[in-house]
């Protein structure tokens, strides 16, 4: 029989600081094109000598994962599944600059060692001495959802009881300036929020979000993960059927969806996808979150944290709502994200 996958713990390091029950209420809207995270103090978790060597992505990943494990009361997960769109950019750039600037001479290995995409997941494993299943997905805006689907398969099939799943992406100067040059990131000096955006590009950021997932329900469980769907290509006309089929396969009627959590990011063109979807859900409360934590490949992981909070507390601070509607009871929540019309993901959650 299929087992149930519960979200029992959340951890995050974001542009608004680290995950807490107050994070969403205290958050302020981002208005700058590139916003770094607000780092916590890492020294309680990682030795100072190691902190100095570690890139932001690794530190954030370790912090967020420990927070998630603590809340879910998981000492040793049966699997660590991570996602990252651009991987360990800081160390990749650092090593590449050294190669190019010094004509392939006088190089040291540290940056190279930490440049591989699986560094965050493996550093978490190393720290926990966790010899279990360890995967890293690296597929742009479905990097996190790929990890979540992997975890769901293992939990539902009973192959694992406790899983640490999450994602992390970090800013690095050169890559972000290139993304700015080609219009992915808004130009310096432009101060627009997601809602009042009139220019091309998006406010970018970085962050790490992890979840402690288990097949056992706890007193403080956030929500149940019903299903995850990933699709490479969907056009705006097909979108309606894509969502309808997903809900139908999970025996959930469109009317049963109590809230939509969307990856709206202020890119006028690709936000059209969300506008299209909203036409079918015009009476449903709609939530967005990238105005608070920015866009990065795995930022949709934060959407899952927001959805979890909504289902647990049955409410969210006002500033999270894109479209507010009367609703007494939130049972099913549907998350939808895409980036520039590619890598679409749907995640369906149910209240416990």
């Amino acid at each position, binding site marked *: 029989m299929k087992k149930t996958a519960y979200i029992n713990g959340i951890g995050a390091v974001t542009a608004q600081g680290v995950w807490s029950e107050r994070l969403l209420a205290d958050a302020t809207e981002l208005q700058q094109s590139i916003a770094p995270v607000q780092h916590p103090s890492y020294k309680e978790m990682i030795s100072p000598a190691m902190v100095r060597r570690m890139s932001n992505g690794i530190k954030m990943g370790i912090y967020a994962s420990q927070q998630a494990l603590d809340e879910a009361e998981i000492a040793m997960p049966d699997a660590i599944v991570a996602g990252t769109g651009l991987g360990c950019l800081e160390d990749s750039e650092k090593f*590449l600059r050294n190669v190019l600037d010094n004509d392939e001479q006088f*190089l040291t290995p540290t940056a190279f060692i930490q440049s591989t995409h699986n560094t965050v997941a493996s550093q978490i494993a*190393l720290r926990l001495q966790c010899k279990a299943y360890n*995967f890293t997905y*690296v597929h742009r805006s479905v990097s996190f959802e790929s990890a979540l689907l992997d975890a769901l398969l293992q939990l539902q099939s009973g192959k694992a009881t406790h899983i640490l799943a999450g994602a992390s992406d970090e800013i690095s100067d050169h890559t972000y300036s290139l993304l700015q040059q080609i219009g992915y990131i808004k130009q310096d000096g432009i101060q627009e929020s997601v809602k009042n955006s009139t220019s091309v590009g998006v406010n970018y950021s970085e962050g790490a979000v992890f979840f402690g997932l288990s097949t056992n329900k706890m007193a403080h469980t956030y929500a149940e993960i019903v299903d995850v769907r*990933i699709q490479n290509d969907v056009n705006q006309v097909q979108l309606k059927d894509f969502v309808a089929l997903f809900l139908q396969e999970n025996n959930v009627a469109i009317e049963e969806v109590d809230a939509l959590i969307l990856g709206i990011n202020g890119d006028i063109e690709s936000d059209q996808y969300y506008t299209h979807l909203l036409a079918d859900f015009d009476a449903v409360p709609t939530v967005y979150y990238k105005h608070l934590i920015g866009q990065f490949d795995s930022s949709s992981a934060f959407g899952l944290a927001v959805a979890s909070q909504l289902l647990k507390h049955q409410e969210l601070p006002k500033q999270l709502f894109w479209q507010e509607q009367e609703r007494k009871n939130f049972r099913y929540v549907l998350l939808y994200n895409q980036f520039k019309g590619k890598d679409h993901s749907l995640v369906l959650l149910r209240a416990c």
Partner: protein
Amino acid sequence: MPSGVAITGMGIISSIGQSVEENWHSLVREKHGISRVENFTTTHVDDIMVGEIKLTNEELIYRLGLPETNTFTRTALLGLCAAKEAVDQAGILDMQTYRTGLISSTSVGGMDFTERYFYDYLTEPALQRYITSHDAGDSTHKIADYLGLQGFVTTISTACSSAANAIMMGARLIQSGRLDRVIVGGADALSKFTINGFKTLMILSDGLCQPFDQHRKGLNLGEAAAYLVLESAEVVQKENKKVLAYLAGYGNANDAFHQTASSEDGEGAFLAMQKALKVAGLQATDIDYVNVHGTATPNNDLSEGRALIRIFGNQMPPFSSTKAFTGHTLAAAAAIEAVYSILALQRETAFANLNFETPMEEFVLIPETETKLTPIRKVLSNSFGFGGNCSTLIFSES
């Protein structure tokens, strides 16, 4: 006994051949593909030997019939060559007939172009079209879009074990009923970035690599791509598909020892093999041939050897590392060796471990030194990577 997931197609491009048949011919004739770097300049050209595919990007573009102005990196070009062959062999004409997925893997992604244009991007608008080709997902997207695959598409990067994990995840998606068929594998192009990275770790050999030899001096890097097509039992039956082999088992574990080095007793490798045997419902004695990871670094071969002894005891089946043919092709390696494992099953052949001369003093493990005809029903293939990622696949005959 579970028969596993059916494999109905495979494709490959490596330094020993641009198709499955060409690779087979090189393998049985013991003809390696290790040479000096020719496709790009590196100051290390005379210090290292590599498994380079002797086709320029322009030749690959021509071969694939792509427009001259495109944004394919070398990783994407190699990946597409191999994926096309796999899809053709599986006889797939329409990607939308069944729920079809693609799970690719890479470690360098578009680094070959990033390292070429890193600074020029800022000043030369004509080059900027390549900027978004840097990430690991790019080559997967290119392959999916070329094949017209709209469904489930993702990418895995767990260093040198990546493609094994792509194959494993594909099998699990079929077994869970989420997909009917899936193209799985990996692609990695040679780059200055990886050459220099491995150089700083001092694990590159200045000559031909010698897996499992007492005097091994390190690895040869290589570039390659390979993909398998996995299909559900229902599709195989409905379409009356020819099954090349089955993926009978898989295992994934983490060594949790060091970011780049393997533990002395090969704990991660041992756990991966143990899990794969369990999933396949097999005993170690059922394995007829082992395609070892065998990178020819002092650390890997010692650690893997100890893990092999922990699994097989004193009944080690015939084994070899084929990395002396192709070089270590990083994220693609497990897919390359999956194709070789399937060839070993189909044609009852254990491949030679080239350049082997002196047994290692730590244990008695003697690889096959020549092509050997022998009955093979089950093959175990290992792939391990930085970050402690250890993966094992078990293939069985159809």
